[in-house]
């Protein structure tokens, strides 16, 4: 149950209007992200790629939110763990794999950025940088532009709970509150910022507690529960669409992997803690729920898994074979060209 804050934010059960096909689709999207992610770790262990940063464990809050959006109309300014989110909005395993290998065809950056720096204009996924939280005021600006232009687009922006310590977060929420912007700030609280735990990051228990300070609902929920994730996000979308303003969402979740392939998490957290959270895995929970509802059986799960693995294999092979950028490609594009250059 979301804890309400500041203004009224009543979450109805929007999942009732999801068809079994849609639910299976959501399940498949989570699974696809998970399996692709696992493959990326394997490729890293094999020394085939330089770096991987995982979205594992956070798939439910991401896919739930994606399904609450209108694709091609609403915007996402993502962060580096949003692998499931961006694929649910239209990016493909090939897209992500090409970036992992730094290949020319990588649609996010043509091999310029590190992997997981998603950016894909056809899906209105805005290119992100590495400095955390810079996306927040930018997302407020996208939402502001929509409002100024009279469009009923809503904007999601994602970040980790650690990143809320940045001034950018404060300033963005302030603008969104003042101008009642259709901005949904989705904080994926996985309880660590690399090694730094929540209590060294903020003096409040919940990020959502900060909604009040910006005159907006701060809603926290179980981010490993895709149904709750969908309901809360859908409510926030409808709110934004109706011109009722911004929402701060806090998905409680966990990152079962180290921060990145460069990290070793044993220095800062116990194995027991990690194991405990693995039992709350969002994909296992989804699978169980679908089976309980009679939507999923062994055969169907098998078919899904088969499709997923085929895509993962295809992405891997395709990307390994794909050409690197040429050295001189580095020189472009710096500027777009001036209309009145002469």
């Amino acid at each position: 149950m979301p804890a309400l804050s500041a203004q009224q934010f009543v979450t109805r059960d929007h999942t009732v209007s999801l068809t079994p096909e849609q639910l299976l689709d959501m399940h498949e999207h989570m699974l696809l992200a998970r399996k692709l992610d696992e493959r990326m770790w394997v490729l890293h262990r094999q020394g085939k790629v330089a770096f991987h940063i995982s979205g594992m464990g956070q798939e439910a809050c991401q896919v739930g939110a994606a399904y609450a959006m209108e694709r091609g109309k609403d915007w996402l300014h993502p962060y580096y763990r949003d692998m499931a989110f961006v694929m649910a909005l239209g990016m493909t395993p090939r897209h992500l794999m090409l970036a992992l290998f730094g290949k020319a065809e990588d649609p996010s950056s043509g091999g310029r950025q590190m992997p997981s720096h998603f950016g894909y204009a056809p899906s209105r996924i805005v290119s992100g940088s590495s400095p955390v939280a810079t996306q927040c005021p930018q997302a407020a600006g996208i939402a502001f532009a929509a409002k100024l232009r009279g469009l009923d687009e809503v904007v999601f922006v994602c970040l980790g709970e650690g990143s809320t310590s940045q001034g950018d977060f404060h300033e963005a929420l302030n603008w969104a509150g003042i101008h009642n912007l259709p901005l949904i700030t989705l904080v994926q609280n996985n309880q660590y910022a690399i090694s730094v735990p929540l209590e060294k990051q903020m003096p409040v228990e919940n990020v959502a507690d900060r909604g009040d300070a910006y005159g907006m609902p701060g809603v926290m929920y179980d981010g490993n529960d895709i149904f709750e994730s969908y309901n809360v996000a859908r409510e926030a979308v409808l709110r934004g669409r109706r011109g009722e303003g911004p929402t701060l969402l806090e998905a409680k979740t966990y990152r079962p992997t180290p921060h990145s392939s460069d990290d070793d998490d044993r220095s800062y957290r116990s194995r027991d803690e990690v194991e405990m959270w693995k039992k709350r895995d969002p994909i296992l929970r989804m699978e169980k729920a679908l089976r309980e509802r009679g939507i999923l059986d062994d055969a169907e799960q098998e078919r899904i898994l088969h499709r997923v693995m085929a895509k993962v294999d295809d992405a891997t092979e395709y990307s390994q074979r794909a050409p690197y950028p040429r050295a001189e490609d580095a020189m472009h594009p710096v500027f777009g060209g001036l209309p009145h250059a002469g």
Partner: protein
Amino acid sequence: MPVKSNIEALRDTMAAEMRRDPTIIITGEDVGQRGGVFRATEGLFAEFGPSRVIDSPLSELSIVGVGIGMALNGIRPICEIQFADFIHPAFNQIVNEAAKMRYRSNGQFCCPMVIRAPYGGGISGALYHSQSIEAFFCHVPGLYVLAPSTPYDTAGLLRSALRSPDPVLFLEHKKLYRAIKGEVPEGDFHVPIGRAEVKRAGDDMTIISYGLMLHESLKAADALAKEGVAAEVIDLRTLAPLDKDTILTSVKKTGKALIVYEDNYTGGLGGEIAAIIAENAFEYLDGPITRVAGPDIPAMPFSHPMQDFFLPNAEKIAAAARTLAAY
């Protein structure tokens, strides 16, 4: 042609462009009813209303950050930073975000936006209302940096900036807002980004400058002319990317280069210009490339004797030019 001050040229151009292009908006501190602390946006709130002339909260980081977002979604923002000295909180959003958006997305996204910032000293503004900030930003590929010094160039360059597909930092010298007047054509005229201008022709040496120092350099050139030294004076106008052709053509002709800037000496834009000349016109030089600039102290002091000490002026420029001419 109407005669205007820099601030009038600025205001009229913003108004004309906003009439032409409904996606242009202005945001910044006190830009609305107050019309800006320098009155650059006076009357615009009345004409265009609160959804196009938007008072921002007191937060430069997000004036730029929100501006980037607007630019990504079809709005062309003019972001006013009240004083250039206060642009530093927005440094990350400008340097890591706006300037790198096109490159990092391999051309999928770009940030057509203009960041206006009143800069420079000589107005008793002390450490935090006098800074020259151009050197920091001229080191940032992906960003245009403009610094016009005449009403004509102000209007013409601002119009070009408002058609640029990439972010522009538009620097306005505070002391020049009302100090000089000049003719400004009506209608849709442009000064191209990336082109310096020879503001005075001469054969004996090249003085390269911009902003307030351009006018001091012109005064110095007047004085030198009476002494028989014909200085060519170049107004850079665009500080990034630099117009190397105009600089090198002139220096190859005169054989001597004097670079004048108001900013701190070390690491200022003048160093880069000197380096370009030293690397590309070596054989033509018949004197050391000389710089006249502010001293290497943290910023311009308030009290008049110290402020005057900081600022280069026509006398100091002429003195350096004489030494160089005698070389």
